[in-house]
């Protein structure tokens, strides 16, 4: 093989890479917060109300979970303008990521809510808790603590999947890589470097999520989060 690797070339594109990393982090953090909040609301709605609400939430979850993220992005970015809603690439990425993550979070949190034993709720009522207190202290917080590791795995997967947003011209990290490649023609080197950055981001995100878990739910949950490599959300 006569090819010589030249990683030095990439150093001059430091700014492009840094701005890509920054947008990837911004999109991930915002979609995690919004998606998780939406997941809590939808999973709660679903458990409180039956009938039409439950059907609609389930339909939403199933549709999103059974179609590719790339196509969801295409519909948001290319499809919505046809309906009169024009959004920029960054906004489209954030909308797509939030819609996607909300569906997965709903499914995970639903499983947590269903795992709360009926006797716990009865015990809460027997202690004179109001419905809201029962919901808050007996149902949702223990449910979240139980599924937190699975949620975290999903968050990391979402951060990694944000690379797909480069296909709709969002200038995040993967798009930075494509740009540098088109300028320097050092494709393999660029993608090696960017892949390592993603790996570092994934490890950092996992560590941060474990700390957040420690702060929110205490030590037991944090340890499970740190050791969980890929808990199947399904």
């Amino acid at each position, binding site marked *: 093989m006569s090819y010589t690797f030249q990683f030095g070339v990439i150093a001059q594109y430091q700014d492009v890479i840094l701005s890509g990393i920054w947008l990837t982090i911004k999109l991930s953090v915002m979609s995690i917060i919004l998606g998780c909040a939406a997941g809590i609301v939808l999973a709660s709605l679903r458990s409180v109300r039956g009938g039409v609400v439950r059907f609609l939430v389930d339909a939403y979850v199933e549709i999103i979970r059974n179609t590719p993220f790339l196509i969801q992005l295409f519909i948001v970015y290319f499809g919505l303008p046809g309906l009169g809603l024009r959004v920029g690439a960054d906004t489209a990425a954030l909308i797509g990521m939030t819609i996607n993550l909300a569906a997965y979070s709903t499914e995970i949190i639903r499983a947590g809510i269903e795992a709360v034993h009926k006797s716990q709720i009865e015990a809460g009522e027997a202690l004179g808790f109001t419905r809201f207190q029962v919901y808050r202290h007996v149902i949702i917080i223990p449910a979240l603590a139980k599924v937190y590791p699975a949620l975290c795995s999903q968050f990391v997967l979402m951060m990694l999947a944000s690379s797909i947003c480069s296909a709709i011209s969002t200038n995040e990290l993967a798009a930075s890589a494509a740009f540098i490649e088109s300028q320097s023609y050092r494709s393999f080197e660029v993608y090696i470097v960017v892949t390592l950055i993603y790996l570092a981001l994934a490890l950092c995100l996992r560590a941060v999520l474990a700390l957040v878990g420690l702060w929110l739910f205490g030590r037991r949950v944090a340890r499970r989060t740190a050791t969980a490599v890929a808990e*199947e959300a*399904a």
Partner: protein
Amino acid sequence: MTFRTFGPDEFLFLLSGLQWTVLLTIIALIGGGVTGFLIALARVSSLQWLRIAAGTYIQIIQGIPVLMILFLSYYGLGLAGLDLPPLFAAGASMTVYASGYLAEIWRGCIQSVPKQQWEASESLAMTRAQQYRYVVLPQALRISLPSTVGFAVQVVKNTSIASIIGFVELARAGQLINNATFQPFRVFVAVAALYFVVCYPLSQLSRWLERRLHVGSHR
């Protein structure tokens, strides 16, 4: 200037794209299944260095985007002087991707076989290979079915990423049709519907298997 509209012919083109999606999924599941199985065995091996190596592989694959695996194999194979069609790069990277996740799923299944089963088979003077072959793996296989089918859904969806390196499967076929018709909403909803038609039955199968398994187990 007139554009094509999204009609039956265009839909047929999408269906031909779907064939490639299915083929790529099958390649990924077979390739990733074989490699993933070996890595899962390495992950629970009695040799420490083998366990660490397999664990590192899994951590790396699960810590990088599928898109990066695709680009690396696409350009990497080119650098190695191999002039291969995109199907090969796509198949290779989906195999690598699937192996990292299947290995971890199956490791969990192997380890969830109760310890007494190992001890009982050991007391029958079985070799380690025999223990795997006759005692542990048949039970692990049963446990692994729901999550493996569930992961197959992820693979079907992630094959869409191969469109970014120019492999004409369902997502890429949708883009091509969209470029000719300029009816993005209609085209991509049709594409999404086709993915749904493949993925939803698999998801339901996974769920059904999981329910059945819970009924059968004594836990």
